[in-house]
């Protein structure tokens, strides 16, 4: 049994560590908001860039990132959830499926630039999509698939055995059981986990660098085979590649803030979806 002062010391230390983390995040947020907020105005958000991005707005980059997010969701959600259903509900515990799981976990640890090069090789060149929204979305989808599969699988496994047993005992087939008494309850976890993963992907630069992102393209895409500007890449260019980099700090901070808000918006959406489903299904 520990004595009281040790208890207090440990509590204090743990609290301090937690506060330190919050402090770092808080400072980053504060810095971006303080410097980025003045740049935010309607013209900045809805306008097209001028002078290589030194002036004007970032509308094409916002549209570009949004279309990549939508494309990534459209590709990765069905694939990831489908894979997770197979792994959680159908796959037997054997060596082959252990290998699949291992591959998925490994995939999660692959550096994003490797995904970028993979996307360039497979989607841009081999499939002949060229640098395009399609190639970029597919590349990002590959990158977030492990996150989606792992989150979805956990969410499926969290559904109590009692529901499964009861469904089967009432004469449901396996798929009927999954459709009526597992998916509805695990959907919130699957979607929340997936959106958080996709939010992370929305801010990635390396995977889109070689597959979709345009250096400077002040117009909107016409189809999924077009290149687009994207917020993370635009930010990277403004901050490091632009000849006037140190004179356009407000543009850089403004772009960072918009990207941050976008990702925050996705997370907020995930939270709302979760609360909605939580209220609907309690056990």
């Amino acid at each position, binding site marked *: 049994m520990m004595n009281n002062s040790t208890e207090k010391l440990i509590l204090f230390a743990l609290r301090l560590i937690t506060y330190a983390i919050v402090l770092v995040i808080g400072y980053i947020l504060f810095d971006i908001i303080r410097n980025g907020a003045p740049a935010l105005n309607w013209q900045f958000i809805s306008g097209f860039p001028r002078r290589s991005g030194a002036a004007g707005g970032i509308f094409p980059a916002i549209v570009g990132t949004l279309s990549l997010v939508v494309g990534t969701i459209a590709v990765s959600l069905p694939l990831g959830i489908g894979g997770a259903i197979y792994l959680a509900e159908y796959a*037997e*515990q054997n060596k082959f499926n252990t290998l699949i799981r291992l591959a998925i976990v490994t995939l999660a640890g692959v550096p994003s630039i490797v995904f970028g090069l993979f996307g360039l090789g497979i989607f841009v060149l081999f499939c002949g999509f060229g640098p395009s929204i399609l190639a970029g979305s597919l590349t990002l989808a590959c990158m977030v698939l492990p996150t989606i599969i792992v989150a979805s699988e956990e969410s499926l496994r969290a559904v*109590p055995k*009692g*529901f*499964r*047993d*009861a*469904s*089967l*005992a*009432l*004469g*449901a*087939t396996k798929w*009927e059981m999954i459709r*009526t*008494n597992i998916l509805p*309850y695990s959907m919130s976890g699957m979607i929340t986990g997936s959106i958080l993963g996709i939010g992370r992907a929305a801010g990635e630069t390396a995977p889109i660098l070689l597959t979709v992102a345009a250096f400077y393209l002040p117009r909107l895409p016409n189809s999924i085979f077009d290149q687009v500007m994207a917020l993370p890449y635009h930010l990277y260019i403004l901050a490091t590649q632009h000849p006037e980099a140190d004179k356009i700090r407000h543009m850089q901070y403004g772009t960072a803030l918009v990207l941050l808000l976008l990702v925050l918006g996705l997370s907020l959406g995930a939270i709302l979806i979760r609360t909605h489903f939580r209220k609907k*299904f*309690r*056990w």
Partner: protein
Amino acid sequence: MVEQSLYPNYPKDLEMVITTNQVNFFYGPTQALFDISLLIPAKHVTALIGPSGCGKSTFLRCLNRMNDTIPHSRVEGEISINQKDIYAPGTDVVELRKEVGMVFQKSNPFPKSIFDNVAYGPRIHGEKNQKRLTEIVEQSLQQAAIWDEVKDRLQANAMGLSGGQQQRLCIARALAVGPKILLMDEPASALDPKSTTRIEDLIGELRTNYTIVIVTHNMQQAARVSDYTAFFYEGRLIECDATPKIFTNPRQKQTEDYITGRFG
């Protein structure tokens, strides 16, 4: 017909609905059931008793093939329901489970409305007519003696019911599919005494129309609700007889030791 040498205390004209012959069950390399040959009479209550791990639940779950879902499990021998081998190749498990309902130890209503819980079975079996569904739901809830308590809140979430009500709802849900046989796996072991009494009363009412097989830990309960009792020990069927006979004058010493509380 009843094998009189094995079941001397069973009435001669008793109709047997479930017959098992030399059933062995394996979880992977571990054998859980050894040569179980048991007859279960129609429209009576048969209790399966025995200490924990004796195989009574495993045996029960063989009767509606719920053990199919356990990886690396294996059944040997023959289990027939109405003279049909339920493990024969080509057996429709869905049809089997429509015929043989099950109630679990832990009440497991779905996190849906009371109505949707009871209507679940009929719906997956293709009943779409709302009027017919409403009839089935009311009838099933009445049979399970819970209609009066829930009739005004059929759209309320079933998770809001008390433990005992949830278990009766689960019984109603099982009845809604129209089974002839009801398997109950310690249906009252997680309930308070009052709710237990209600479940036992309910079993007493259901026995006129259903064949009930109930696994129970509680010997008093077996004595109260069942007509016939089978005693399992270490994966073997030790003895099966009319309940009063088992509890007053068992043939086997192990049975006597168990019911007098010398072990288990």
